[in-house]
């Protein structure tokens, strides 16, 4: 009885395998037996989150402008600014569009050379692109942490800031199409060009002229003198020996190609040795990079948050300050340096936070 039961189970299992798997795999080629396996429905659902312009892939859900504003202020404004206008970390999201653009579906300021920035809302034609991106990759330092409803809410708030939807609007999978019809630059894209695939025809052509090709040669643009050292000393960015050394941009150009100067006085090869002869960066600086503090804090310059030099200046020597700052990094905070909040950093180890705080307070950057 026991043996038979086991056989029956095996038979049933084999039958079920035939029913379940055979029809699926037989359709696909199997030239490489043993390699690859069918993806489960749950696995495809977990990864296939893209949303197309026809809204295929859009998940069911909704979010209001008001809810979106709450999320925005807490989690988005620190990089994008309270009104989506921030240009400190990324280019602005909102601005440069008008009511006429919404009517027309083309953004007029895209042809205005005086328009200082091309914002996201000026460019994007497809609402699906914004939903897809916010859901898959935002917030920048905590991607995939927004729920579907939070994503709808954030997008609703963003559209409200761009005056595409009213203050009481609720964005949902049902209302996306109606908003698409109001996107300011919805008719602003063209696929009529030859750069999309290999068969496409080029739109610009040079000529292979070999002799007497230019009546006169005029310099139309060059770097201004004040930018000479803007990319730091170019002598240190070229091979320090050989015929093609870098220009020493920390000094004025040579008056002339002077053989007596360059040969007689000599010029030592300029190599910046940057590996083991230089002492390693302090732990704090390594942690600063590791935990992406630089996304919001410059060492000596203000970004979204205060520079670490400013922080050191204000707090150094105050009682219990290490513990206070450690808590602020861990739990987040607001108000001490303006109204942009600092998000919590729950995943950074306590020892790293402590090292960071000590390093910041030392103030040696």
């Amino acid at each position, binding site marked *: 009885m026991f043996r038979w039961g086991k056989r029956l189970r095996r038979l049933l299992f084999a039958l079920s395998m035939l029913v379940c798997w055979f029809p699926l795999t037989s*359709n*696909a080629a199997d030239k490489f037996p043993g390699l*690859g396996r*069918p993806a489960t429905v749950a696995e495809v659902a977990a*990864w*296939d989150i*893209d949303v197309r*312009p026809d809204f295929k892939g859009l998940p069911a859900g909704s979010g209001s402008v008001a809810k979106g504003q709450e999320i925005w202020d807490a989690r988005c404004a620190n990089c994008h600014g309270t009104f989506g206008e921030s240009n400190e970390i990324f280019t602005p999201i909102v601005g440069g569009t008008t009511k006429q653009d919404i009517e027309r579906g083309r953004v007029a300021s895209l042809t205005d050379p005086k328009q200082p920035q*091309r914002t996201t809302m000026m*460019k*994007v*034609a*497809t609402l*699906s*692109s*914004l939903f897809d*991106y916010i859901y898959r*990759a935002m917030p*920048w330092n905590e991607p*995939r942490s927004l729920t579907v409803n939070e994503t709808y809410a954030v997008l609703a708030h963003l559209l409200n800031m761009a005056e595409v939807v009213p203050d009481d609007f609720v964005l949902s999978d049902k209302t996306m199409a109606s908003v698409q019809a109001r996107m300011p630059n919805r008719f*602003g*894209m063209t696929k009529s*060009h030859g*750069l999309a*695939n*290999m068969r496409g025809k*080029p739109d610009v*052509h*040079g*000529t292979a002229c*070999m002799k007497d*090709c*230019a009546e006169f*040669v005029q*310099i*139309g*643009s*060059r770097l201004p003198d004040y930018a000479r050292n*803007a*990319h730091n000393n170019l002598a240190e*960015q*070229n*091979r320090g*020996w050989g*015929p093609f*050394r*870098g*220009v020493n*941009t920390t000094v004025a150009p*040579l*008056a*002339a*190609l002077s053989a*007596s100067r360059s040969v007689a006085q000599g010029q030592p090869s*300029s*190599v910046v*040795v940057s590996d083991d002869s230089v002492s390693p960066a302090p732990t704090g600086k390594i942690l600063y990079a590791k935990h992406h503090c*630089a*996304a919001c804090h410059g060492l000596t310059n203000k*970004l979204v948050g205060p520079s670490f030099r400013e922080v050191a200046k204000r707090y150094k020597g105050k009682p219990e300050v290490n513990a206070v700052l450690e808590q602020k990094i861990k739990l987040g905070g607001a108000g001490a340096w303006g109204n942009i909040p600092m998000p919590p950093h729950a995943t950074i180890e306590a020892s790293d936070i402590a090292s960071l705080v000590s390093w910041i307070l030392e103030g040696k950057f």
Partner: protein
Amino acid sequence: MIHNTPRISAAPENFVPADLISAVTAHGIDDSRRIFLRSSFAAALLGGAVLSGRAKAAEGEAAILEKQPWQTALGKPVAATPYGVPSTFEANLQRRESPGLTRVSAASVAFTPLQGLFGIITPSGLHFERHHQGWVDIDPAQHRLMINGLVKQPKIFTMDDLLRLPSVSRIHFIECGANTGLEWGNVAVPTVQYTHGMLSCCEFTGVPLSILLDECGADLKKGKYVLAEGGDGSGMTRTIPMENALDDVFVAWAMNGEMLRPENGYPLRLVVPGVQGVSWVKWLRRIEVGDMPYASKDEAVHYIDLMPDGLHRQYTSIQECKSVITTPSGGQQLHATGFYNVSGMAWSGRGKIKRVDVSFDGGNQWRTARLESPILNKAVTRFNIDWVWDGSPAILQSRAIDSTGYVQPPIRTLRAVRGSRSIYHNNAIQSWQVGTNGEVSNVQVG
């Protein structure tokens, strides 16, 4: 007594006075010049080097006549650096950010120092970097590639599966669509590292995407596009036309004989020959077959080309034929007149390089350069041309022609069609001005 006329090198660190060099070049070494030469050595060596008896009596360079430290001591053992690194004398050649270009280094660019490279292969450690949300180092044992969408059977492949499949190894260039993008309006950066350094060329190894699509039974009738998706936080997605995908696209794990570097997508990236870098999705985790383009963020907000009429060209992808002289190039200093091997790189997203012409007078007269082998499809080709610089001002340009007959255009021709406010696909002829002082600078002509 007049000897043969030896040529004394004019390398900048030499300490022989120029008037003596010209005298020796013109007349050879006679007794009076020999004394002068000897005193020059003596003067130079006062700076700290020990003057040996032999050098005192020598006729020639200390580099030859003196015993050098590397000659007189035991060298380092094998495996002193188990993973080898370049000489300390090469430390200047590094990937660098362009100051002020981006505000956050996790969403930034590090440019390849093309001015210091030879041949066509970019060393893995100098391959340019462009990340949208930082780079990650993914455990290959945990990495999966999913193929889904319009396929009969969605499938999952592990890295173990992929490395068992038939692989190909091919050399291709990868260029960011925004390479030279800073220069649409005017000259903005000083050196070829910053004008053209979002370009690399490597040998990649992987499995053709067509094999994987076939394994899953992709619907090639309806499925005109594939979407490639990254497994990092940015989840980068790009649409690739199916005809491209079936032609020469492959899923690569290796670069230059070793596994991909994490900055370049370890353990898996897409290789899309001839197409801008953003489509070479790094940390590749998913391919979806679909019947329309996806208008992802990097196809709808970025990597769109602004035309003068305010329209944006969407899905611009092909990197058209382009070339640049890398030595001498902007920010370099020539220290002497005479012979130079002028060298550069040429590449085309539509095929092979057929010819490169070089001008030394800003585009009036042109000469055809030597193409060095190998000359490969959708890969960088190295070109060289002889040049004797007489010390007068010069403007160096290179102009590439590819196997389709396409000729690389001047910047003014490009602007006449596409305006000057685009960011992407600037493949204009590059001009380097050589001043009478030997300084080379980035200029635009006309």
